[in-house]
Each structure stands twice: as C-alpha cells, then as structure tokens.
C-alpha cells in the first residue's frame, strides 16, 4: 500500500485536536501545578509558611493523583469532568482529566526546582524586608526559572502521550487516529504518519524548552 491514499484531512483534523488538547491542558496545569508546588515547598519544614500538616496533605494528594495510570484517571473522573465542562467526551471532555493528571506532576517538578534555590538568597531577601509574595515572585520563581522551564517541557511531552489515550473518550487527536486507523484498520501508512507527527511534536517541544533553558542559564 502506498502513501497516496493517506486521509490527509483526517490527519490534519487529528493534529489540530492534539494541539488543542495539549495547549489547553498545559495552559491550565502549569499555573495550577505552580501554585500547588509553591505551597508544597513553602509549607515544608524550615520554609516561611511552615505548616507540617498542610504540607503532608498536599504532598499526599499530589502523590495519589500521580500514581493513578492516566487511562484509569480518564474514566474515573468522568462525573467530575461532566460537572466541570458539561460533557465527558470529545476534546472538551478530555481536558479536565489531562489537567488532573498533569498538574500534580508539574507541582512535584516545581517543588523540586524550588528546592534548588539557594536558601541564603531567600534569607537575604527576607533580611532586606521583602514582602513574602514579592520573595516568591522575584526571588523563588526567578531563581528557579530554568528548572521550571525544564519542568514545563517534561510536562508538555508527557501530555502529548496522555492525549493519545484520550481516544477512549472520543477525544480524538493523533494517538487516537493511530489506534483507530493504523492499528484497528491495518493502515500502516496512517500509523507511520501519525507517529512521525508525534515524534516531530515532541522534538519541537523538547528542543524549544532546552534552548530556552540554555539561553537563560548562559551567564549563571
């Protein structure tokens, strides 16, 4: 079978769906994960909002959500999804579970990135009388920025692979196309094209992230 019969419109449609799911879920999980990650970090022992029980609770929630396989999460949170966006199917229905899976993951990466920030720099900012929200913004997040960008990159790449599973709820996208056409209908050409597109997408994300990290850390 040659490549002349490839259903290009379907492939473009799937690419669009993947990009929408990726963009929307990334746009939501990054801020949510960032806030949760900052809270997990700042409530840990020795930090300025030290609250052991809040820290443990948040940490537990993050761990539990991270240990549920995405395919199960997708089905398990359906009632919540329906309540949030009015439907549990299609691209729209796929976004809440994607966020629920990716936000805790990014929260953990945020916490790790913040732990890398020199404690002394935070102390110096405190000694200068810097308000705490300003310390978070202008010291913590700034000093941790390369780690955070690397974290966003990893989260985005993970999201690409999660979107492939969203076909289960009719979310569409490239992964779904690969399963329905490439696998179930024995269309290796479609399979090859979708996989190639996914590889290119991941490559673009990763090299964009890496380049940004390199640029920001040039002088540090």
């Amino acid at each position, binding site marked *: 079978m040659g490549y002349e019969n490839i259903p290009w419109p379907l492939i473009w449609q799937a690419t669009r769906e993947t990009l929408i799911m990726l963009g929307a879920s990334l746009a939501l999980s990054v801020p949510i994960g960032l806030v949760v990650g900052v809270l997990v970090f700042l409530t840990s022992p020795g930090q300025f909002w030290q609250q052991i029980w809040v820290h443990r609770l948040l940490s537990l929630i993050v761990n539990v959500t991270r240990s549920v396989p995405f395919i199960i999460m997708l089905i398990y949170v359906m009632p919540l999804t329906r309540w949030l966006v009015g439907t549990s199917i299609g691209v729209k229905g796929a976004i809440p579970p994607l966020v629920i899976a990716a936000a805790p993951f990014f929260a953990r990466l945020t916490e790790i990135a913040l732990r890398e920030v020199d404690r002394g720099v935070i102390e*110096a900012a405190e000694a200068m009388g810097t308000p705490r929200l300003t310390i978070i913004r202008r010291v913590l997040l700034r000093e941790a920025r390369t780690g955070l960008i690397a974290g966003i990159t990893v989260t985005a790449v993970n999201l690409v692979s999660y979107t492939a599973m969203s076909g289960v709820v009719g979310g569409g996208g490239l992964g779904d196309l690969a399963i329905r056409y490439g696998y179930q209908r024995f269309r290796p050409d479609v399979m090859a094209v979708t996989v190639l597109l996914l590889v290119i997408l991941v490559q673009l994300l990763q090299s964009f992230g890496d380049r940004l990290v390199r640029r920001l850390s040039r002088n540090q």
Partner: protein
Amino acid sequence: MGGIGLIILDNLVKTYGAGKETFTVINHVSLKVEKGEIFGIIGRSGAGKSTLLRCVNLLARPDSGTVTVGGVELTRLNTRELQARRRKIGMIFQHFNLLSTLTARDNVAFPLRLEKMSRQEIRRRADELLELVGMSGHADKYPAQLSGGQKQRVAIARALAAQPDVLLCDEATSALDQETTRSVLALLGDINRKLGVTILLVTHEIEVVRSICDRVAVMHRGEIVEMGRTADLLLKPRHPATRELVQAEDVDVRAWIGGNGGEDGGTIVRVLLSGESAGRPALSEAVRGTSVRFVILHGTVSRIRDVPYGRLTIRFDGPPGETSAVIGRLRDMGWEVESVDGI
C-alpha cells in the same frame, strides 16, 4: 562608652528542638552596640554567634528577651512593621547570597525596587553604590562572572542601598582569601567612617577583629564570656575561650617551651608591650650592667586598629637574683611580663 546603644539585645534566649533534645544556642545574652562603632562577636563555630546576629533583624526569633534597634523594639513589631524596619538594617553573608539571575546592578537595585522610586532613579542610585564599592566596571556582569571578593562588594552595595544605619556581617570574609579579606575589611572600615554606618560583625577569625573592630565580645557555648575594647581583650585575654582564640596563632611557642623550658637554668617569660612602650629599647636597657643575657624565642609585632603592640617570648640566662631585677626594670618601663608557667 556611655551611650544609650543603637542595638540593644536584652537577655536573649534561643533554643532549638524540643523536650529532651532541646539545645540552647543562646543563653541569656545581653549586648549593647553604640552608634558608629564596629563591634565584633568572635567565637568558634557552633558558639551561637551567627544565631545571635540573626536575632538582631529577627531572621531568628529569640524564645525570650528583647531586641531594640534605633530605639524601636523589633520583638514587638508585626510582620509588616518588621519588614519596613529591616530595610534600615543591611546584612551581608559568608556566601554573598546574590541572586544568580540578576546582574550586579540589578542585585543592588533589588532593595531599591521595594521603595517608591522611578526606574531612572533606581539605576542612578545603583550605579552610585557600585562606584562606592569599586565595582563600576562590573555593573552588567552576573554573579557567576565575578570573583568572591567582587561578589561581596556587590553584596555590600546591595546592603547599603536602602541607606541603613546598621550593617550586620555574618562571617563576611570567611570564604575569601587573605588578601581579598583585607581589602573587603578596608572597605567596611571606609563605610563605617564615611557613612557613619554602625557595623556588627560575627567572625571566627581573630585577624578580622584585630584589624577593624573597636570593641569585641567573645562567645562561647551560647554565652558572652568576655567583652571589651579590642586591644584590651586581645592583649589581656582573661577567659580560657578568649585565650584559646588569641593564642591559637602562637601555638609553636608552647611547643618550643615544652622542649627547652628551663633545663639550663634560664627563665622564660612572655612580655607584652603596647602603645608607647613598644618603641623603647627597653630590653638592652634592662640588662645593662648585669650578667644576664637574653634570647628572643618568639615574637610578633603588629597593630590592633591603630595601636602598635608586640608580644615576645624571651629566655633570660643569668643568676636568679639578677634576672628578677631585670624583670622588675622591664615592668617599671611599662612592659607587662608574665612567667610562662602561667600559660
């Protein structure tokens, strides 16, 4: 000094841990630092001196006792008031603690951005400060591109940005080599003189105290065991902890004495001369007309702030009667002579 004290620490206690594991880091410490002076707190690591320094701006909160800076009792302030007051208390650190993602200029500008100032004003002021610390040529460099001494200079500029009346220095030269230490200390001395900034510093290096401190307190196991004018304290240490710090530099003398001490009938003494008496040819005057001869086993001549002093270890050989007469003459001439058995 009989002033009211710019920094007053009153009966501070600070413990870490809880229950049986409680460890008292600061044990009922009271201290007064006068406006305009350079005050040093010296002690070995773990003596509690860094924690004590952190109590001054409440980076560490004492369990009990009060901290008063410039007439304001910090221990009573709420978070917002404390933040405002902290802007007038500069602080520098052993590891400089500059933001690695900001240039030297932006690091200095950091505290300025907390005030209501225009961008141009901030930039102008930051450049002025960099000039003050001799870093004008490095404004656009990042900390990673600077040497340790240069980083500390930027940190000093940053600490001075909000025109503080107090500068706290936490082992500010401990990560620097000797020569850089000297130049950073000279800069701190300049700042103290030119800007009238009161400096409270913590160190484990006797050299730091010797070269810039007006007064010094010795901290040992969470307590201040001795306090006084630098020259007095260094030349006449009373507490064992002070002696240990001061004498750490002439350990070899003791080794010397241990090997040769008195076996041939000589008398070994340690003498201390400071101020005017340091300039006189007292030794040759003292032995004139006697059969006593002397050998200088060890000696250091240096200055503490602006006071020249010398410390010598001398062996006198001669009849005991004459030797004690010689020692008497030295004492008359203002030398302090101490028998080495007393070490």
